[in-house]
């Protein structure tokens, strides 16, 4: 296997973990929603690496597209900031 590509995949997984921590700590729900969209996009890249293009397409369409839309509508109805 190409070691450069493996290194890049490791970099992507670091982005994945850091993004999850940012979503968890964020009080701004808009940041959390957009962060989860980015995480879905990276997860779909990982599905592509694992040779599951069907799942990658579904993850990109549902996780990065539709879920973001539904959550944005829900956020608009409820409020942007999480209060303690």
């Amino acid at each position, binding site marked *: 296997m190409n070691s450069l*590509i493996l290194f890049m995949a490791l970099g*992507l997984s670091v982005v994945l973990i850091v993004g999850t921590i940012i979503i968890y700590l964020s009080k701004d729900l808009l940041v959390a929603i957009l962060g989860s969209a980015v995480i879905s996009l990276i997860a779909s890249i990982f599905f592509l690496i694992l*040779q599951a293009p*069907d799942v990658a397409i*579904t993850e990109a*369409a549902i996780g990065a*597209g539709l879920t973001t*839309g539904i959550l944005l509508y829900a956020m608009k*109805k409820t409020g942007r900031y999480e209060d303690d």
Partner: protein
Amino acid sequence: MIRRLIALLVSLYLGYILYSFVYVHFPFGERPLRGVAAHYVENGIKEEGATNIVTSIVTLYRGFDTLGEVTVLFLAATGLGLILAGMKREEEEKPEPTLIMETVTKYLFPLVLLFGSYIFIHGHLTPGGGFPAGVVIATGYFMMFIAQRSFTPSEYLLSATESFAGTLYVIVGLLGLALAFSFLDNVMPLGIPNRVFSAGIIPVIYIIIGFKVGSEMTGILLHLKEA
């Protein structure tokens, strides 16, 4: 300035990774398959005629599960519609969408619809299928909802498409029961693999599912928008 530079570098990095992954072979899936998986991979094309084996598993070998999934999705959409039905909100002043957004979405929308249709029509040849295609179409509608002020598809037409497609799916399944003595069996000629008109009823089922999921998800988004 520095933040923009970092953002540019990160997006270039992601783009390069995506580009290079297409051409790199990872040693996944090289272990010999056993049991039912081996049967699918060896006889899938011969038995069902679809070059995308995943599709023939989803729609034919495990077709009953897919019917269950479609039912779950239908129930979820119906439940959401039921909860949000009484919550019609009065029109309030919304910020005007910018000219760029309005123009771009106007020209992008037909392309998104075309891409979604491409995914479900070619479900038996390339990765994808009815479910992702329906979601892609619904995302196109979502884009129009947020960027165009006077864009509201008919709710009645959406429900009618959804119910009609769902009924048609069950009828196709019963056709298999009547003609081949097995629910959702492949009753149409298989044709030559790798052609658009091949694989028997798989394209038919995926076109039905594409319409159903697309109208269902658009209905969910429309309910949420109007609530």
